[in-house]
């Protein structure tokens, strides 16, 4: 391709370059069509043994086939199929037929007859199964053609009696995917007896092979997924399968029962061996609950998961899942939960100190105790105690979903969830904390439960602690003792893990604002004020004291009587904190003070917002003044950039937009400055040195455009065009500068050609947007393109230069939502004076903890860079699992970086920072033209690079020489 272009530079070409190129491309396609099938034909004829033929087929399967040539290929394959004696080759051909019929743009109805035909003569079971698979592929490609579907269903029914399980499996699959029940089909389907697909599939529920049974259930589920209404009669059949010997059957049966229960929740089913009747959904619920204690954990997981989505179950049944009637020596015993509750309500706190405290009380009527109930008894108790953590997690999730829909159940399951906070697997603990958070609207924690919850604050895992803080943010606490307890535990947490500071403050903020009345009586104690004496003023820098103040101030917001309890220094501290931690401390209506007028009410729409107006105005000013004298433009640009930057600092919600536009303006400013340079007026050879400025500007513009393109989330296509345009200008600048500073024509050749390719590429990518770029640099350039193609490099440079000077300043439309990606490294804090010592040649692991904001797909883009004092830089790709997603737009990177170096004489600092890697290919809209695997040979479009987007942190390290 490159050679081809090169030729074009010299040749005289008419104006229709593009069209001609396209013609060539289509021609090429037409050429390949016969050749591909022909080659295959020749290969297959050449093949002397089945093994050879198989090899050819395998090779053939590696390459895709165009839609146009599929039919030819299929014919050849079929032809060979009839001749072939070896089943393995036939198998491969059958599978190829299936693959080919999936090709987009190919309508496979023409090969169906052949496929059905060869099916009838086939003896090998494996090939039969594969052929049925092919038919399935064909059938799914033609969902509208009822007649074909009917025919295929017929074929499937015919082969259902095959002795091989594989064939029966495929038949059932086919029925599940294509079978229909609609009566309207019977009229136009000529003579084909309509079959009751459900009945046919249902008959195979009792097949002798478990795989076929599974396939039958799956087919039934498939029917349901395709929108056919299943009969209620299969419920009983499915229930029988619950006691199947094979786990995959049971697992599928559980699903089927669930589906039926969702379809007919209100039907009445009889309870066997009694005269009573219950709702079907309740019965199904009971059955699935029973499966939570199945022998196979796969089934248990399945059952536990499905329980969560059965919302229509009566509450009576639901609550049984948490009930496991305890007994000891045939006497009824209360559970520990009940005991705790009783103690709590009787006013006595915690005990269990006496032996026999849990001594059983009432006698149980032996006849009434039902050890394995048909009902739902204790399903969750079992699920939460299961050996496999997968089951436990599924159970916790199910609890969560059920509790969200039923407040009374939420109240009941609380004890169990709290217990899960002590699970041995961290994932389960985390999951149950999250679950609790989700249902926190429905619940109020009792003091003893709160106690258990708070105990987890000491957990050494940061994730757990933070999840717990989030939970506390939205919990309801019932008493003031509870609040006090929570505060005390949080402060304890703060002293034990100082890094949790921000999270704890945030947690207290919400805790305060949720419970103002409970905080009120605690205020004197918390501030340690005394009715008569002044107490010492606490240290303002103490994080614990700040934590207390955050709690109080947030409570005071809705409790006007509270500030009366404050002492003088509290007010001073308030003013200080309101300023320094404005996101944590709300504006208060304080006696004798004006309400701080920061209250920009949230109901102002962004366009009425004065700061947003200001932004708009200043930008418009710039865009309208593009034809002023260069000096004035420069000044105005500088001024606006400064304004925007300041605005971004002040108004965090506008920071993204402001920064984005400021960057763009800066690029423009640089471009203008570079073009103002005097060097353009003087003869080239004299300016070797001064040209630094211009080339530096070009380089910087490039960098900035990459930043604009990849560091902001929410950038739309119209911005991308402008950014690319700016980059193109920078490249033009680069071209001119190098043209002026280098001697000789040879290097220029390459550069010009590259630049023209660049322009070409731009045009191709953004062809739809070109009308918006009236009068721009690229617009003019494209007008002159034919001339440029044929001109000598020196001329090209000249043309480009004049056009660059004449080009106008493009208006950058502002996107709706734009956010700058940013990262803050929390750990290492970079404050330590103690060097990290390790033996040289070995590695030391450095924990890195950072929060990332507005980074899209951080798993692939965020890298960690370590810079050693000797200038050596090391790039580390964190594992995908190191990223967590605590909220929308936010990510958290917790990873370990391995450092190593040869021995140093004294400790020194290494720098750690985060980089955003980009790949220019990813953003460019794929034009249909590029399809077909030739992208790599195109203009080198993919430019990979990295943008640093966090402050670097210094870490003190000391590799010691190894001792011998």
């Amino acid at each position: 391709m490159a050679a081809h272009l090169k030729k074009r530079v010299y040749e005289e070409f008419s104006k229709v370059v593009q069209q001609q190129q396209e013609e060539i491309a289509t021609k090429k396609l037409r050429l390949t069509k016969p050749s591909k099938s022909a080659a295959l034909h020749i290969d297959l004829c050449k093949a002397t043994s089945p093994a050879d033929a198989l090899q050819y087929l395998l090779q053939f399967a590696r390459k895709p086939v165009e839609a146009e040539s599929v039919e030819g290929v299929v014919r050849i394959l079929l032809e060979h199929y009839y001749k072939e004696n070896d089943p393995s080759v036939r198998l491969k051909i059958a599978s190829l037929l299936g693959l080919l019929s999936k090709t987009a743009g190919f309508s496979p109805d023409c090969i169906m007859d052949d496929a059905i035909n060869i099916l009838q003569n086939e003896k090998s079971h494996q090939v039969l199964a594969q052929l049925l698979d092919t038919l399935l592929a064909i059938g799914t490609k033609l969902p509208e053609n009822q007649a074909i579907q009917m025919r295929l269903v017929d074929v499937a029914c015919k082969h259902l009696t095959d002795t091989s399980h594989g064939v029966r499996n495929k038949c059932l699959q086919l029925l599940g995917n294509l079978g229909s029940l609609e009566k309207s089909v019977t009229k136009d389907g000529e003579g084909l007896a309509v079959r009751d697909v459900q009945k046919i599939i249902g008959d195979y529920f009792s097949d002798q092979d478990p795989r076929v049974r599974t396939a039958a259930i799956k087919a039934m589920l498939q029917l349901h997924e395709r929108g056919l209404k299943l009969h209620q009669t299969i419920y009983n059949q499915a229930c029988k399968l619950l006691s199947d010997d094979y786990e995959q059957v049971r697992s599928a049966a559980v699903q089927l029962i669930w589906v039926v229960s969702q379809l007919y929740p209100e039907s009445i089913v009889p309870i066997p061996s009694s005269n009573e009747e219950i709702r079907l959904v309740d019965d199904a619920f009971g059955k699935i609950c029973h499966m939570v204690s199945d022998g196979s954990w796969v089934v248990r997981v399945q059952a536990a998961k499905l329980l969560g989505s059965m919302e229509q179950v009566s509450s009576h049944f639901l609550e049984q899942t948490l009930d496991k009637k305890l007994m000891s020596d045939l006497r009824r015993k209360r559970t520990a939960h009940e005991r705790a509750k009783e103690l709590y309500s009787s006013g006595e706190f915690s005990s269990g100190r006496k032996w026999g405290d849990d001594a059983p009380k009432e006698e149980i009527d032996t006849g009434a105790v039902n050890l394995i109930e048909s009902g739902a008894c204790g399903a969750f108790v079992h699920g939460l105690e299961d050996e496999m953590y997968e089951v436990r997690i599924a159970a916790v999730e199910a609890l969560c979903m059920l509790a969200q829909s039923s407040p009374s159940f939420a109240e009941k399951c609380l004890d169990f969830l709290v217990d899960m906070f002590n699970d041995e697997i961290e994932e389960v603990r985390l999951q149950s904390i999250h679950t609790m958070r989700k249902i926190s609207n429905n619940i109020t924690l009792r003091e003893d439960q709160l106690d258990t919850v708070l105990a987890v604050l000491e957990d050494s895992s940061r994730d757990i602690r933070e999840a717990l803080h989030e939970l506390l943010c939205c919990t309801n606490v019932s008493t003031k003792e509870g609040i006090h307890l929570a505060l005390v535990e949080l402060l304890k947490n703060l002293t034990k893990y100082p890094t949790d500071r921000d999270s704890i403050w945030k947690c207290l903020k919400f805790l305060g604002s949720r419970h103002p009345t409970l905080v009120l009586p605690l205020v004197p104690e918390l501030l340690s004020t005394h009715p008569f004496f002044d107490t010492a003023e606490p240290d303002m820098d103490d994080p614990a004291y700040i934590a207390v103040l955050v709690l109080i101030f947030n409570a005071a917001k809705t409790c006007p009587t509270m500030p009366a309890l404050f002492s003088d220094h509290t007010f001073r501290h308030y003013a200080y904190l309101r300023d320094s931690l404005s996101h944590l401390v709300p504006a208060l209506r304080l006696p004798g003070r004006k309400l701080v007028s920061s209250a920009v009410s949230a109901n102002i729409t962004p366009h009425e917002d004065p700061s947003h107006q200001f932004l708009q105005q200043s930008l418009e000013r710039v865009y309208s003044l593009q034809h002023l004298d260069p000096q004035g433009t420069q000044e105005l640009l500088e001024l606006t950039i400064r304004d925007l930057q300041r605005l971004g600092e002040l108004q965090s919600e506008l920071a993204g937009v402001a920064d984005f536009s400021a960057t763009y303006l800066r690029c423009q400013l640089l471009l203008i400055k570079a073009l103002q340079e005097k060097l353009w007026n003087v003869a080239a050879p004299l300016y070797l040195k001064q040209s630094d400025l211009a080339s530096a500007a070009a380089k910087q513009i490039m960098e900035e455009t990459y930043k604009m393109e990849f560091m902001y989330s929410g950038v739309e296509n119209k911005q991308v065009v402008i950014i690319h345009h700016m980059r193109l200008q920078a490249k033009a600048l680069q071209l001119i500068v190098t043209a002026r500073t280098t001697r000789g024509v040879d290097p220029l050749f390459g550069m010009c050609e590259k630049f023209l390719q660049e322009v070409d590429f731009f045009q191709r990518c953004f062809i739809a947007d070109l009308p918006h770029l009236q009068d721009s640099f690229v617009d003019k350039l494209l007008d002159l393109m034919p001339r440029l193609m044929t001109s000598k490099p020196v001329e090209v440079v000249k043309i480009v230069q004049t056009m660059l000077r004449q080009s106008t300043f493009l208006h950058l439309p502002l996107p709706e939502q734009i956010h700058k990606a940013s990262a803050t490294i929390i750990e290492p804090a970079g404050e330590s004076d103690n060097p990290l010592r390790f033996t040289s040649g070995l590695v030391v692991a450095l924990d890195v903890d950072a929060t990332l904001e507005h980074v899209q797909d951080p798993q692939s883009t965020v890298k960690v860079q370590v810079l050693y004092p000797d200038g050596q830089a090391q790039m580390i790709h964190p594992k995908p699992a190191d990223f967590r997603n605590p909220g929308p737009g936010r990510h958290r990177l917790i990873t370990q970086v391995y450092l190593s170096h040869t021995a140093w004489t004294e400790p020194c600092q290494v720098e750690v920072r985060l980089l955003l890697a980009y790949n220019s290919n990813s953003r460019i809209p794929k034009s249909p033209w590029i399809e077909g695997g030739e992208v790599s040979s195109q203009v080198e479009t993919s430019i990979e690079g990295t943008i640093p987007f966090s402050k670097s942190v210094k870490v003190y390290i000391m590799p010691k020489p190894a001792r011998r």
Partner: protein
Amino acid sequence: MPEIRVTPLGAGQDVGRSCILVSIGGKNVMLDCGMHMGFNDDRRFPDFSYITRNGRLTDFLDCVIISHFHLDHCGALPYFSEMVGYDGPIYMTHPTQAICPILLEDYRKIAVDKKGEANFFTSQMIKDCMKKVVAVHLHQTVQVDDELEIKAYYAGHVLGAAMFQIKVGSESVVYTGDYNMTPDRHLGAAWIDKCRPNLLITESTYATTIRDSKRCRERDFLKKVHEAVERGGKVLIPVFALGRAQELCILLETFWERMNLKAPIYFSTGLTEKANHYYKLFITWTNQKIRKTFVQRNMFEFKHIKAFDRAFADNPGPMVVFATPGMLHAGQSLQIFRKWAGNEKNMVIMPGYCVQGTVGHKILSGQRKLEMEGRQVLEVKMQVEYMSFSAHADAKGIMQLVGQAEPENVLLVHGEAKKMEFLKQKIEQEFRVSCYMPANGETVTLPTSPSIPVGISLGLLKREMAQGLLPDAKKPRLLHGTLIMKDSNFRLVSSEQALKELGLAEHQLRFTCRVHLHDPRKEQETAMRVYSHLKSVLKEHCVQHLPDGSVTVESILIQAAAHSEDPGTKVLLVSWTYQDEELGSHLTSLLKKGLPQAAS
């Protein structure tokens, strides 16, 4: 009539001295060989003389199976094999094989050295006995001899505990040993597949109890320890060396790890250290968490738990100490208890049941002043807590296991008679299977109807399959073939093959039958009418009219002839071979009804 006989020598309506004899399919197996904690005389061991009055045990027993290493399941083993005399194989799992001798040696020491018993087994005997052990893996089918095979399933309870399936031909028995259906901190839950044994012998220690969630217990335990340690108090946990001790260690260890606690935890040394070593080794026998994390760290390589030294008891500051024995009746735990009892900040947690008369029992029942030896009075100011950690399946668990295995009969052992009664009634009610609970020495006999496998030749099967529809489980199918019994195996083959194999010539057996028809017309016409009639009735069969005037239906021949006396009556001669009996009789009955009146 084949039968399975079960006789408990110990553990029949009783806890302790587990020893059950099973005769199945002509094989005799002894399950477990335990001692009784409650006795110090002859009753301590099972009465092996019951097995054979005179004669060697080895001749009578095909194998011995030990379910786990607790002494009430293996304590009598050296006595049985070395002193009574048994040389056959003893099967147990690998962990049991490793830990068993340690416990036996300990038991021997206490009996001989402390109590001064004579005529007890020696260390050498333990060694010799262990040489007869064959170790098995989980789910490994071991062929004891040609017919008898055994297979181990995971049972929870303690490290290496297993349930055993004993199988002879198609008859099988499952013996559970002790098992636990709820997983704990170091072991998983018992599991068995749907093996549908003829008999399930299950323990029933907690036949009448349904236990609370283990999480409450764990949380309580941790909370208590944590509070005491935070107060600066010392916590004493008396334990027996193996089993629960490891669970509590893991529990505390992970808690310490999670909560970043610094207070030291000690474990009194001795036999525990050796045992802990095996716990580290047999990771595959532990629960999911330990198995998954052991790549990073073996959970039994305790970080926070260190060996205890006598001097540590006087150290200031908080600490947690695990000390033996578990009932505070003697030894290190009692010594530490005496030192710490005076301080109300301290705490003692009893993790299990205490026998009456022990210090443990006294303090649990609320006694605050204890008389020690030498008339000393010890005032107990420390807190006393009771936590029940037990590793047996509760009633619900037992029912769950019965449900999983789907046995034909259940037999309860290892429990109290009164409680068994309740469970027995429940099992019979829920599962509709018969349930037995024999006392020691009482024999239960179960008649079995073993299925006899018959081989069928593939050709015959395929031929039959081709003839009709797929086999339907609900409908019986008729199949023609010849059963050959030869060298105690059975084969079903086609008759031609049978003839060929046995070298016999085939005899044709033909039935003929005459049917009188009243028909004045000629023979040919009669035949024609018969033909058209049959043709219309028997649509599925091939009906032909042969040129010689006879009619054939498949291979059945019908000839019409005039009656010698009455020309108005025609005689139809119907003849069919033995193989076509069904069709032939159908045809005759059809013809006997007469022909329909012809239209003419």
